[in-house]
C-alpha cells in the first residue's frame, strides 16, 4: 500500500484521537432542562415537547436524583398518570458523568449502558449539563472539518524534511504483543534522524514503549497519539477499558495486575506507569472503571530555560 492510501486512515485515527481527548464539558449541552421532585409527568411532557428533547433529569438542590425518559413518559401516559409526581415514574440511581472526564470515557459509557443520554455533574456533584449521542456527533463533525482544513493547508505548504512537526496516531489491540513497540520504534527513528539528543530520544522511546505495552497487555484496545513540535513531544494514550480502580496504586512501583501470560512476555513487574512518570517532564493519568484510561506524557525537547527565553 502506498503512503497516499494510508493517509485517510491516519487522519481518521487522528480525528478519533482528538475527540477522545476533549473534555465532556467542551461537548455537552450546558443548557439543561431539569425538573424538581414535586413536578408532574405533565410538566415533563411539556418540557420535552417544547424543546424537542427525550430525557429530563430530576434534581434536588442541583443534585441529580433521577431521570425521566421518553419511555417513562409513555408508560405514564398509558396508565393515565400524567398528573402524578415524577418521582413515581423516573429512573432513580442515574449513571452520571463527570464534566472533566475525557470524552473517550463517555463513548465507552454509551457502549456499556443502554442510556441515550447522561446527566453531567461537576466536582460538587451538581448538574451542569447533559450529554447525548448528538453532542458526540457534533464534536466529531467539528474535528473532522478542522482536520480537513489542516490537511488542505499542509498540502499547500511543502513539508520540510528536517521539520520536527509530526502528529501521528497508532491503534493498538489487546494482546497484540507483536505490534506493541512499533510506534515507539518509528518515533525513535524519526527523532534520531532529526538530530534530537540520544538521551531525550531514549526518554521518549521508554515512555511510548511502556504505554504501548500497557495498551496491549492491560486494555481491551486503544490508541497512542504523538504530537511533536520543536519544543516538546506529547504522547497520549487512550483506551476503552477496563479502567484502573486506584490510579495511585498503579503508580506504585511493583504493583501489578498482570496475569501469568503477560509476565511470560517479560512484563507485568509493576514498573510500567512509574517508569513513564519517571521519564516525563509532565505526566497525567485519569481513569474510570468500565470506561477507560487516559495517560498523557510530555517530554521537553528544549530545556525549560530555553522555552522561557522564547
Amino acid at each position, binding site marked *: 500500500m502506498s503512503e497516499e492510501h494510508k493517509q485517510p486512515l491516519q487522519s481518521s485515527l487522528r480525528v478519533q484521537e482528538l475527540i477522545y481527548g476533549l473534555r465532556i464539558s467542551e461537548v455537552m449541552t450546558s443548557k439543561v432542562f431539569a425538573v424538581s421532585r414535586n413536578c408532574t409527568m405533565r410538566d415533563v411532557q411539556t418540557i420535552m415537547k417544547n424543546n424537542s428533547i427525550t430525557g429530563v433529569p430530576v434534581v434536588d438542590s442541583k443534585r441529580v436524583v433521577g431521570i425521566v425518559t421518553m419511555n417513562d413518559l409513555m408508560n405514564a401516559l398509558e396508565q393515565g398518570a400524567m398528573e402524578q409526581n415524577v418521582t413515581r415514574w423516573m429512573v432513580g440511581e442515574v449513571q452520571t458523568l463527570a464534566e472533566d472526564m475525557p470524552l473517550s470515557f463517555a463513548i465507552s459509557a454509551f457502549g456499556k449502558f443502554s442510556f441515550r443520554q447522561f446527566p453531567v455533574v461537576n466536582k460538587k456533584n451538581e448538574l451542569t449539563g447533559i450529554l447525548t449521542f448528538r453532542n458526540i456527533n457534533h464534536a466529531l463533525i467539528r474535528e473532522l472539518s478542522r482536520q480537513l482544513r489542516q490537511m488542505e493547508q499542509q498540502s499547500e505548504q511543502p513539508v520540510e524534511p528536517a521539520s520536527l512537526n509530526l502528529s501521528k496516531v497508532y491503534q493498538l489491540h489487546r494482546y497484540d*504483543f*507483536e505490534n*506493541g*513497540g512499533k510506534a*515507539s*520504534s518509528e518515533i*525513535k527513528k524519526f527523532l534520531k534522524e532529526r538530530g534530537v539528543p*540520544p538521551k531525550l530520544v*531514549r526518554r521518549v*522511546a*521508554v515512555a511510548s*514503549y*511502556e504505554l504501548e*505495552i500497557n495498551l496491549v497487555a492491560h486494555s481491551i484496545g486503544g490508541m497512542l497519539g504523538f504530537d511533536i513540535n520543536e519544543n516538546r513531544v506529547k504522547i497520549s494514550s487512550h483506551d476503552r477499558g477496563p479502567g484502573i480502580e486506584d490510579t495511585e496504586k498503579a503508580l506504585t512501583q511493583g504493583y501489578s495486575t498482570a496475569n501469568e501470560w503477560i509476565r511470560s*512476555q*517479560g*512484563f*507485568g*513487574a*509493576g*514498573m*510500567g506507569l512509574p*517508569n513513564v512518570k*519517571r521519564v516525563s517532564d509532565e505526566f497525567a493519568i485519569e481513569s474510570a472503571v468500565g470506561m477507560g484510561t487516559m495517560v498523557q506524557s510530555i517530554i521537553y525537547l528544549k530545556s525549560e530555560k530555553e522555552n522561557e527565553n522564547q
Partner: protein
Amino acid sequence: MELQRIAYALDAELICGPDDWEKINIETVFASDLMSDVLMSDRDEMLMVTSLSTEQSIRSAGIVGSEAIVIANDKTVTEGMIELAKDQDIALFCTRHPKFESCVRLGRIMEV
C-alpha cells in the same frame, strides 16, 4: 572490550549483525529476563544478555542503546526477532550456555 572476544568467551553463534560487528566496543552489560527492569535502566547498556527470546527483548534492548544481544540457554530465535535486530543494527547472538553461566563467563573476561 571487543564484541568478538565476548562472542568467543560465550561460545556464541552470530545470527545477524552489522559488517564490522567484531570491532564493536562493549563496556556495559545488562542481564535480565524482565523487560520492565531493562527499561528502568539509566545508562547505555551496550550488551544485553537474556533468556527471554521474544521480539520485545530486541525492542527493549534497542531502547536502552544496546549494540548487541545474546540469547542464552539455546532458545530458538524467531524470524521477527532477526528482522527487528537488522532494522535496529543490533548484533544478535545465541549461546547454549544458561544465563547465569554466560554472566560468569562475561565476568571473568571483563574483570580487570
